[in-house]
């Protein structure tokens, strides 16, 4: 065979190999494109669900933040409030102590008399029974003076008599002669009756902006 024949033969094979390479290259490119397109399609299809997931997460995050903030604000408010409550209660306890101790002081007699007059006036005078504790029963109460004060206040002639029945509390209970109506002016009862009002007053003093002088 001549060399020109050999060249033709080589060329035939080389061309075929080149063509084969191109065919495979094109197939690979086409396959890659197909897969790439699928990836894009999948991402695009997932977008709606992704958006919905993230939106839901953001909403839940806002709810979490709101809930924690509300809860902690409530807890913080409660901390402050319970401290105020504690301070008011400590004042009230001191008031109770001082009232109990008042019984031992000289100032007590006029206070007791005033409590009797107040109770008698509320009961609108008349014949009234005064119930005292054991200690107070021995105090030199000027019943005539008290009767007059009640009568002046109510316009009804009044007669006070010390009851044989004694109480344990400090203060007085005054009742009508028939025992149907009574006014409890023991310190305990007064405090209990006026606790709400007193707490408010104490709170106003303790927690007002103006400093104590």
């Amino acid at each position: 065979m001549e060399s020109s024949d050999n060249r033709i033969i080589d060329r035939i094979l080389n061309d075929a190999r080149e063509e084969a390479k191109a065919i495979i290259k094109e197939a690979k490119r086409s396959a890659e494109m197909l897969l790439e397109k699928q990836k894009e399609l999948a991402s695009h299809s997932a977008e709606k669900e992704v958006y919905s997931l993230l939106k839901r997460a953001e909403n839940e995050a806002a709810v979490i933040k709101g809930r924690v903030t509300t809860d902690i604000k409530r807890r913080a408010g409660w901390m402050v409030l319970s401290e105020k409550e504690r301070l008011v209660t400590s004042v009230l306890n001191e008031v109770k102590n001082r009232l109990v101790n008042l019984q031992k002081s000289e100032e007590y007699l006029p206070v007791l008399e005033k409590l009797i007059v107040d109770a008698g006036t509320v009961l609108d005078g008349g014949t009234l029974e005064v119930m005292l504790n054991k200690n107070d029963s021995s105090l030199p109460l000027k019943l005539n003076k008290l009767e007059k004060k009640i009568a002046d206040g109510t316009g009804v002639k009044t007669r006070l008599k010390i009851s044989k029945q004694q109480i344990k509390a400090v203060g007085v209970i005054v009742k009508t002669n028939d025992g149907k109506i009574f006014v409890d002016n023991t310190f305990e009862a007064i405090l209990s009756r006026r606790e709400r009002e007193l707490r408010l007053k104490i709170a106003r003093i303790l927690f007002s902006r103006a400093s104590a002088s």
Partner: protein
Amino acid sequence: MLESFKAVLDKEREAEKIRLEAREQAEKIEKEAQEKVAEIYREIYQETIAEAKRKSIEIKEQAKIDAESRAQIFVRRAKKQKKKIRIDAEKKFDAAVNAALNEILS
């Protein structure tokens, strides 16, 4: 001459075989790609959703961290306020006791 012609014809056959094999391989590549289409779609879809779910968890976790840190600020502020209230109130303690006594006794 005949010999040369035969040789060319042989090589032509060989060349055609090479092309045929290449076409077969190309078909195989494309077929494999077609077979992978659904799998790739599912994989990418699931990966994207899984990533979004991870991100969702992160968002919520971060919200909790932020809220807790904010909560600590509130608590510190409340403790400070509580202390101030106590100190101020203690200065007015006697005035409050006397006012309450006055209210009861007067």
